[in-house]
């Protein structure tokens, strides 16, 4: 019995036990609260930046959509790290791999749809408009 326990501690210390996202059983609550406060501050800052940038025209207008999307992706990263506690550590390999697969599917669905449907609507253009473009 005792060697099982010592092994459990050893494996936990060497990071061989997996962790589920948003869960950290052995940690003290203080660590959690600190991480949530950092996450809240960063997320608030990014949100305010997004809204101010959109409302106040602080950024060169044609660059605004890209800037807003970058801010959103940054904020999703903040949520993942500070709220969901997804890290790059060895105990998180499974979580990160699942996340990477999810991101890949999301990118395929969204970018693929926009790409294909954009071409489709270009090809389905009413004949008179198509004639105008060719002239």
């Amino acid at each position, binding site marked *: 019995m005792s060697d099982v326990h010592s092994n459990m501690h050893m494996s936990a210390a060497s990071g061989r036990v997996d962790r589920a996202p948003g869960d950290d059983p052995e940690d003290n609550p203080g660590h959690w609260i600190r991480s949530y406060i950092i996450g809240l501050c960063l*997320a*608030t800052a990014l949100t305010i930046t997004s*809204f101010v940038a959109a409302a106040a025209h602080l950024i060169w207008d044609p660059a605004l959509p890209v800037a807003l999307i970058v801010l959103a992706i940054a904020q999703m990263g903040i949520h993942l790290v500070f709220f969901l506690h997804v890290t790059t550590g060895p105990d998180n390999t499974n979580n990160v791999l699942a996340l990477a697969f999810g991101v890949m599917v999301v990118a395929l669905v969204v970018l693929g*749809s926009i790409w294909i449907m954009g071409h489709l609507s270009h090809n389905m253009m009413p004949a008179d408009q198509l004639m105008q473009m060719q002239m």
Partner: protein
Amino acid sequence: MTDTHFPSSIEALRLLREDPNRVGHRGHVLSSPIPGTGHGRTGPANKRIVVGYGFWIFLLSDIVMFSCFFATYAVLQGGTAGGPDIRQIVELPRVEWETACLLASSFTCGLSFAATNARNVLWTQVFLVITGLLGLAFVLLEAQEFAGLVSQGITPQRSGFLTAFFSLVGCHGLHVTAGLLWLGTMLAQVQVKGFRREIIHRLICFNLFWHALDIIWVGIFTIVYLLGYVA
């Protein structure tokens, strides 16, 4: 393990007979009885990790589903059929309040889980109630927005763009509403059943669910509202 020490070969045979498919939390090789690392050498990881990881997979599939709604919205954005476009729909102050509510509720939800880790029923419940009230405020703001649009004749039937708008934003709203029902259930369960192991597993899953909703909302307020506002 037993307290009496048999020779290791007998012990190994016993393990093999009791657990032929290594589904227990121990391996057959006695020299490395690592309990449930989930890395293939032993049985599955402990239930708390399996539950959390399984729910993480569900959330990712939920996000994939949302990505279909996002793709539909992006494709149909221009299809207004002579009706209102996104710029006539966006009310920026309302979106600011909605975002503030959801972000704050994500924070309090995390604090409630920190209180759960400290096995403190009172603070778990207090933060869950605050989370629920902020979530309720979000749902009511969104319902008010939808009701206002419908009263102006801006309904999902009006154009392809409006169908995509209402289904994307409405689907997120439905998720938050379902989350509120779950939250109410958890309040009751924590009160009646206390911090039993399965209750803590459910709280872990609820915490994950609520954070995932906030991540999806970041996508919605950026893609739909802010990009619509600057378009």
